[in-house]
Structure formats: C-alpha cells, structure tokens
C-alpha cells in the first residue's frame, strides 16, 4: 500500500477522535497513578492539531506530520507533549520530501519515532510507560514488514491485538519513569495512561488504512 497525505490526514483525525472520546478515561487512569491530566492534555493537543490542519491545509505527509508535531509540542505540555510531539516530528523528518511512502518507509518512520521517545524519556521496556507499547509493536512491524515483507494492512489485527496486550501488560508493572514512579510499589495494579494513548495511536494507524 501507499501512504499519502490523505492517509496521514485520516490517521490524525481518527487518533484525534479517539483521544477526545477517551479524554475522561485517560484522565482517570492518570489520576490513579499520576496527576490526572493525560486525557485533558491529549484532547487539547488533538483539538489544536485539527485546528491547525484546518487552517494550514498541508499538501505533503512531511508537512502534515510537522504541523501535528508542532501542535502537540506547543499545546499538550506535561510529559506526553514532548514525547508525542517528537513522535510526529521524527516521522516527518524520516519521510522527508516523498509525496507517498510505502509500508517499509512507514515502519522506518515509526522506528525513528520510537528512538525519539527513548532518547528523550530514557525509558526502557518494563518501566510502565508508552515505551511498553511502542517497542514491541515497532519490533513486530520491523520483523513482519522489513524482514518478512508483509503489508501492514495484512497484519492489522495482530498489531492492534499486540498493542492492546502490551498496554494491559503495564498493569502489573511498577513504574520506574514519569510521575507514576513516585508511587513506588503503589503504582502496581494500574494501567499506564501513556501506554493507553499509544494503543490508540496504533489502532488509529491501522484503522486509517481502510477507506
């Protein structure tokens, strides 16, 4: 499949819709082990991104992703702002000037986004952050798409399932990074909000394929 500006526009709109729909839910998760703003922050970011897309009407994937990245960076705040901002900025930079990209390009973009997250947040798998969803999903994509040359559309169900599993797998973890780490053992038993929004990220990425 080929991914053009229309695809990324669909993706961002679906992601934004999920964030807004899950504002309360994400906020509740964050209230349990953080400061109760993740949903509010991501919703504000989603609305800012849509607003800017509306007025700036980007013509290329790179431009669109940069606008979204800057919107998140300058409106989300907290930990999630720089992290998700970086995701979109890194994707934008990886894609470069191409009008359309293929499955492998998209995976490389996501791989760079993950590197961005880890460079910034210095978190590893198992520390109860969004990395717990991102790293396994990106590894899976690398294996399936870069090595085995599958199309993403063929493995969509598995991606969503994996993301969901890994999101849930944060429940028994003790947080070692971010605000939840202040809780020590008391962070165990709660699902990580950032892992949850990351699940929504990959779900949106897949759902944007159809149509």
């Amino acid at each position, binding site marked *: 499949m080929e991914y053009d500006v229309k695809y990324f526009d669909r993706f961002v709109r679906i992601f934004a819709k999920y964030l807004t729909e899950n504002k309360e839910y994400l*906020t509740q998760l964050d*209230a349990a082990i*953080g*400061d*109760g*703003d993740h949903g*509010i*922050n991501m919703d*504000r970011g989603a609305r800012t991104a849509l607003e800017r897309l509306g007025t700036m009407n980007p013509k290329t994937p790179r431009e669109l992703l940069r606008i979204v990245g800057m919107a998140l*960076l*300058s*409106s*989300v*705040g*907290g*930990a*999630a*702002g*720089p*992290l998700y901002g970086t995701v979109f900025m890194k994707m934008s930079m990886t894609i470069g000037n191409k009008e359309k990209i293929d499955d492998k390009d998209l995976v490389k973009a996501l791989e760079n986004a993950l590197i961005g997250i880890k460079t*910034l*947040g210095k978190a590893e798998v198992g520390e109860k952050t969004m990395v717990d969803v991102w790293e396994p999903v990106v590894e899976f994509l690398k294996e399936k798409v870069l090595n085995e040359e599958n199309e993403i559309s063929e493995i969509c169900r598995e991606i969503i399932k994996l993301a969901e599993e890994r999101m849930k797998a944060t429940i028994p973890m003790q*947080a*070692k*990074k*971010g*605000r939840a*780490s*202040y*809780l*020590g053992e*008391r962070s165990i038993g709660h699902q990580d909000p950032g892992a949850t929004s990351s699940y929504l990220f990959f779900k949106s990425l897949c759902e944007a394929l159809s149509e």
Partner: protein
Amino acid sequence: MKKLINNPENVVKEMLEGMVAAYPDLIKVHFSPNFIYRADSPVKGKVALISGGGSGHEPLHGGYVGRGMLDAACPGEVFTSPTPDQMYEAAKTVEGGEGILFIVKNYTGDVMNFDMAADLLKAEGYKVESVVIADDVAVEESLYSAGRRGVGGTVFAEKIGGAATERGWSLEEVKKVVEKVAKNVRSIGIALTPCTVPAAGKPTFELSEDEFEFGIGIHGEPGRKRLKMKPADEIVQMMMNAILQDMPLEKGDEVALLVNGMGGTPLMELFIVNRKVSQMLDGIGVKRYKTLVGNYITSLEMQGASITVLKLDDELKELLDDPALTPALRWKV
C-alpha cells in the same frame, strides 16, 4: 465542582489577565505563548532567571517575577508542564546579554519541555543553563525512578538565584549558587483534602474524613502512605523526622524555613504547624534565621501543608536577605 471560574478552558488566560491588572507596575504578560515577565525587561547586563511549571500552584511561579527574583515565569495548563515555545519566547524577551538560567522542578514533563526550549535557544547562540530542583523527601531517591519531585525548595531557589542575578553574578556563578540551594533544601507535604483540576471536574483523589495523605505531591500525587488523622504536633513530628533523616542538622546550623499552605489551609493552622516546627528545631539547637508562613506553592484549594528546610551558609544568608519586589514576596524594598 464549585469554583469561581468562567470556563475551565480559559482559567490560565483569565488568571493572567487578572494578575497583570493587579500588578501593572511589576509585571507584564505575553499570551500565546503564555509567560509573565518583569515590567522592566530586559534588564541589560544581568543573567535572566526563568522558571515555570503547571498552573494551579500560585503564587508560584508568576508571583515571584520581579526585581530580585525571576525575570520570567511560564505557566502551563493547570498541573501540566509548560511547552517549549513558552520558555523559548520568554527567554528571548527577557534575556539581557548574560545568558539564561532555567529553574526546573523535577518532573519528567517539566524537564523535557525545558530541555527542548534550551536546545532551541542554544541553537540560536544563547547561553542556557538549567538547575533542577528535587527536594521532596517523600519520594525515596533511586537511580531507577524519575527521582524526587521539586516542591517548596523552588521558592528559595528563585529568591536566592534572583538575588545573585541582581548582584550581577555570571551565569556560572548563579548556576552554582542555585545548585547549592538545590543540594541543601528538603521538603515534605501532607494533605487533608484533595483538589479539583477545573478541566477534570473531579477531585484528583479521595480521602476519607479521618485520613490524611503523608508525602503528598503538589499535583495531588499520592504520597508515602495514607494514615489515620492525628493531632498537628504528631503530623509535624513525622514530617520533620522525614526531613531530618534525609538532611541531618546539627546544633548551631542555621536554616530558612517555609511552612507552606496547599491553598485551602487556614493561616491559623499553618501557625500551629510553625509552632511545632520551631520547637523541634530549637530543641536540637538549630537557628531559625528566617521563616515564611503562608501560601507560597499551592495545589489549588487543597487543604494541607508542606515544610521546607534550607540549610544556610553566609553566602545563602546574604542572598536571601537581598531585596525582592514581586507580587508575592516583598523584602527590603
């Protein structure tokens, strides 16, 4: 949720408008991106001191903008770190040619956002340094966590750092003395009630009528443990023990004290807390050089208190005593 607000989405903007209306002689406000800055900015030949963080902790940080303290403060949304564009624009507005020092409370989000702003500014040739304040002893220090939270110590860092910039110290010197504050300051907080972020509309946590949270964070983050309510003196004893275990004080040491209200605590109760804190310090022969009692770093309408102890030396004492003229702290001016 009952609050004196209009729309939860506009609380920060409207607060800033109300703030500048109150202190037009001291501060100015820039919107989109939001920051508060000294009315006489940029002050040439002086290091620019900038801080920021989530809103809802007022008077921190905006209340400490002015002569002898901050050059600018960047307020995020309620309880949410500010974004890099705020610090970037604020720095460009107030920079006086001698570089910029960021005072950052140790939260993942704050650190990341300030770091990004520093990178942007450095790329444009500005000298930028940061000091991270991590004074909350409620959080066990550990290599494998985000480290301690930054709380009340920030007020002293801003006061003393601001005095150093006002004396014309270099960026390196200012950084060094703020690091000294960071190293010698400890805090701990407790909460009797939660608070409600306007956009969330619900209390950040629940606490029953006979419980308090020991080691609460300023964003309502749960603390070390939840305990049955006790008399003030016993609570203060627990708090002071946590501080003194972490930073032992000896007979003859001198300290600055901050007995801080979380926003919804009557001043009467803070004085009752200060009574016991003072008795305990007197008991071990520690001299209380200066005491602040009141709402200095809050969590909206939360009821509770925090105690901050800063160990002083002659340099810190002098800088602490220097004039300050800001909305929330006035000294010798």
